[in-house]
Structures are given as C-alpha cells and as structure tokens.
C-alpha cells in the first residue's frame, strides 16, 4: 500500500515538474491554481504513504525529504509566488521518491528497537532542516540565473518565468533562518535521545559527523546572512557553496562507510 501511494505521489510530482517546465517548452504558462493543486495532491498521497512506514532507514528519510521539499514548494508559492522554484523542487522530489522506491520502502516492517517520539521528532526536524537548506540552495540557484539574465539584458523565458531577484533573496534568507532552528532542535533531540536512551539505538559515527557538519554550515550561513547582513549575489553563492559542501561531505562519508543502512 505505501509503495502504491508513493507511486501516485511520484507520478504527480513528475506532472508538477512537467507543468513547471511548460513555459520553457514554448507552452503557455500554467495557471497558478494548477501549479499548487498537482503537488498538493501528490503531497496528500505521499503523507498517506509515509504514515504507514517505520520512521527509520534511508528510503524513509529520502521519502520524508521529498515530502518536505514539496511542502516547502507549496508554502513558498502561496506566500511569495515563486512558481519557478518548482522547476527544481518537483524533479528533485520525484527523483527522491523514485530513489526511495528503488531502495525499497518496507511497509509493515517491524519498528526498530528504541524508536520513540524523541527519535521521530529528531528525524523529522533534521530532515526538515535539510529540506530548508535545499530550498535555500534552489532559491540561490534561481537568483544567480536570473541575475545573469538581468545583467546580460536577456529578456527570454528565464527573465519572464523566474521570480524577481529580491523575492528569491528573501526566500533564500527565510529558508536558512527557518532551517537553522529546525536542524538545531533535531541535533539537540539527538543528543537528548543519546543521553536518555543510551544504547537504545545504534548510531553511525559518520552520521553524527555529517549531521553536525550540516548544522555548522547552516549556522555559518545564517550568521553571515543575519549577523553580517550578506545579501544578493554574495549570499546566493554562499548558499550554493554551503549546500554543495554538505552534499560532498555526505558522499565522502558514504563512500568511506559503505553498507550503512540508515541516513548514510
């Protein structure tokens, strides 16, 4: 059943990606209502599938990440009217769900030992923090693309479809600022869990390293954006560098500790 629901979500995210790409294929821009409705429907099936899964394992984490990314896309569109974000979020979410399905979502698997609300919240907040970092990256990438078009005085599809620069900058800042407390809380819950339920759940050291590294990157980005008031192109480059570093460290750790079954 969860796989079936995930397949529907995957199809709807794919459709959302196609709708977002329509203006670049010479088609008329899709009505905003449809741009909201399709991923919302996908997210509804998705959440139904997620609730039936045990909240551990790489496949679950990837699926949860995809779900959060789609939710953030919908919220961004509703609050800031940044439809072009779906150009990245929809294919990314579809890819993550597809990967989760390939890895094997295990409906009805026995809950892991030591699973409790602390762990569930830790996973949810950490993945949300990661999704917000990904959103910040996407906003930054869109910013740099639009920046380049505006500087080069090219008034094509990117100029027309992409949101205004400052709105993308605002989205990037909001995602970083919201992501940091979410990830911080996720890390604190992990520490609290380790202290309170010591020995209840096996933790990979690489996972701890990556989690703390991601938290440090996000913290540094927020400090530069809020404390040092970095904006615009500089802030966009910072977000892209931070996200790339998180991704590279993840891959490095993954290669260094093959066969890990959890986050990494």
């Amino acid at each position, binding site marked *: 059943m969860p796989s079936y629901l995930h397949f529907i979500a995957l199809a709807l995210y794919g459709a959302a990606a196609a709708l977002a790409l329509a203006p670049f294929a010479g088609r008329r821009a899709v009505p905003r209502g449809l741009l909201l409705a399709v991923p919302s429907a996908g997210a509804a099936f998705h959440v139904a599938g997620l609730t039936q899964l045990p909240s551990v394992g790489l496949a679950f984490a990837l699926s949860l990440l995809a779900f959060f990314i789609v939710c953030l896309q919908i919220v961004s569109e509703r609050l800031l009217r940044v439809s072009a974000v779906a150009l990245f979020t929809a294919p990314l979410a579809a890819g993550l769900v597809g990967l989760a399905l390939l890895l094997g979502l295990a409906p009805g698997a026995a809950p892991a030992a030591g699973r409790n609300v602390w762990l569930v919240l830790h996973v949810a907040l950490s993945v949300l923090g990661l999704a917000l970092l990904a959103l910040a990256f996407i906003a930054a990438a869109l910013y740099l693309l*639009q920046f380049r078009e*505006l*500087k080069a*005085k090219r*008034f094509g599809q990117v*100029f*027309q479809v992409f*949101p*205004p*620069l*400052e*709105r993308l900058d*605002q989205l990037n800042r909001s995602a970083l600022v919201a992501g940091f407390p979410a990830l911080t809380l996720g890390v604190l819950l992990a520490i609290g869990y380790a202290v309170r339920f010591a020995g209840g759940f096996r933790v990979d050291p690489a996972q701890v390293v990556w989690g703390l590294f991601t938290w440090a990157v996000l913290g540094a980005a927020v400090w530069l954006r809020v404390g040092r*008031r*970095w*904006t*615009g*192109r*500089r*802030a966009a480059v910072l977000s892209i560098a931070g996200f790339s570093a998180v991704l590279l460290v993840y891959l490095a750790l993954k290669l260094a500790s093959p066969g890990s079954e959890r986050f990494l």
Partner: protein
Amino acid sequence: MSLTMTLVGVNHRTAPLEVRERFAHGAHEVPGALGRVLAAGASGGVLLSTCNRTEFYLSDAAETALDAVWSLLGERLGDGREARPYGYLRRDRDAARQLYRVAAGLDSMILGESQIQGQVRDAWELSRGLAGAVLHRLFQSALHVGARVRTETAIGRGAASAPSAAVALAGKIFGELRGRRALILGAGDMAELAAACLVDAGVQVTIVANRTVERARAVADRLGAGAAAQTLDDAWEHFAVADIVIASTAAPHAVVTWARIAPAVARRDGRPLCILDLAVPRDVEPAVGQLENVFLYDLDDLQAVAGQGSAERRAEIPRAEQIVEEEVASFWNWHDTLAVVPVLKEFRGRMEAVRAAELERVFKQLRHLSAEDRDRLARFSESLLNKFLHEPTLALKREAEAGDGYLLVEALRKLFHLEREE
C-alpha cells in the same frame, strides 16, 4: 513639374542606440538642419527625430539634397564616419507608406505605441514653415492614418510605454516596489511620466533637476505623495540609498559616470541598484553597468521588454497594414492629381488665348456690333470653350485619381504642344 517625395532616414532597425543618439535632433536644431538640406536642392522638408528614428521627408529633392542629409548625419557621427550604412532611402509611395506605418505604430519598437503619434505631430508643427504643400498634406494624412489604425484595430490595446516598461523591469529586480526609493534625473515630460508610474507603484520619489531646482520642485509638487526635489550636485550621494534611478535629462552627454557614482555604489552592501536610462542621447555611461549589483538598462532594453507579450497586438498587423495601403493609395491619388493640375492649367490657358485671339479677329470684322452684342458674343465663346473643355478636364482628373493620368497628360502635351515643366 516634378512632384517627387523622398525619405532619408535611420531607425532602430538599421542603427544601434549609440548611433541613433548622435543623430537625434533637438527641437532647436531642426530649422537649421532642414534649412541646410533644402538649400542643397529640395522644395520642402520635414524632420522627424525621435529616440528611435531620424527621418528627413523631402519633396522634389535633388541628389545634392540627399547628399546633404548624409553629410549632416555623418558630421554628427564624427571621426569621419559615414552615416549612409546606417540608413535607408524611400521614394514616393514607399516614403508615404513609411510615414504612415510610423504614425500607426507599426514601425515602433513597441508595436502600436501611441507616443509616436504626438511625435509625428510635433515634427510637422516644427517644420511647418518649410514643409511645402505635399508634405503638409502627407503629415496631416499620417495623423489621420495613425488615428484610424488605432481606432479600427486593437494594435494599440495594452501597448506599454518606455516608462511603464521601466517600472516592470524594476519589478523584476525588486518584486514589490512599494516603499522603495527612486531618484529621477531630469524634470522633462518623460521623467515626469516615469516618476508618475513609480509614485503609482508606491515608490518614494526624488526629482533631480539638471539645471534649476525650481523645475524639479514643480514636478514634485504635481506628483505629490511626498515627492522631493534636489539639484544634480546633491544627487550622487543618493546612489548609495536609492533602489531605482531613472535618467531622462536633455543633456548632450552622459551625466551619470562611473567616477561619480562608484563610491556611493560601493556602500550599498550588495543591494541591487536598477538604473533606467530613458534619455537619447544617453545620460548614463555604459561602463556603469559593469558595477557589481548595478543593473543598467537603456531605451532599447526597455522597448524590448515592453514589446514582449504583444501576440494579440501582432495579430492586428495585417489589418493595420491594409489600412495603411488604402491610405497610401488615397494619398497617391491626390498626389497624382497635382501633376495634372499644371498641365490642365496650361491647356486651358492655351485654349483661352486661342479664344481671345479669334474673338478679337471676329470683332475686327464685325465692327458694327454694339458693345452689348460684343459682350454677348464674348460670353458665348467663353461658355462654348468651357463646355468643350469640361468633359476632357473631368476625364483627365478622373484618370489621374485612378492612377492612370500619366498617358492622358502626355497625349495632351503632344497634341497641343504644351511645354514640359521640370
């Protein structure tokens, strides 16, 4: 009599902005430029100079007059450069068609824009004393064509202007414009229109006058909404805080230079600055666009933006072109009748001379006639002549209006040995 019409021009399709801005003539320069061209061999002329075009409409222009136009434009280019490669030449019907298309907004960068209608009117008013009958009629009818195209088609519906495109472009950088700060350099019509667009969008505007602050103050008062006025000397520091700068002064050279604004821009902490140069010649040095986070756009860029999304207006082009063709045909019919008039006049004069001579001869032979009878006989001869000439005259005019008068005119000349006027 020759009644040729020639157009020598340069427009946005044939020359880039950096060339067009050199060809642009201020109102005070028009009489001098036209006078020089007419002196070189043309009976009438109108100079239409806008940000997108510089067109000399000439009647009965000799080749020397055309050379004078190229020479005049070449001088404005400087460095011994030739203007001819940037321009075009249209004659007679093609010249009329070009003006009609211009007035209808068909030749504008922003299809169907209405500002050109006023510019055609201004050009006509400015050159009126030098235009001559044919160009006078041509420009008068061009305004009619412009109005007709805009009334009978939807080509002008929703067409943007450069200032409104400037606001749209600023919106692509800042999103919401409410609460932003704008600096308007210049206090002319275009500057005021741009400022009004920004005020409507909720932008806090400061008007900067190029010469006198009083003029800027007057514009600021008209705009209301807290608009302020300043002198140019105090404006440079505002580049550190303003979000949008619109430059539209009448200065003959760039007033906003890298050296003047770079120190202020460096203090912006990476915030974007949108500079929109609506002036021709340009007010902003192109190098300013190289500054980090500075987005510089000139009139060509704004018009490219404004010209987008005009699919519905483009669909009206065939109908608009049809109207233009109808009006060109109508004008040319009138124009053709002009060629017939002097021939007819001479023909009638010749007949009248024959009548007078014959009457005189008859009076000499019939000396016994009373004054009253002589008068009656004279009226009879006049009436007879008029009756004989009535049908041929009408036929000639009719054929001329239908565009086929040339052969009849030639026949008349040959049959009655009329002089050929050139």
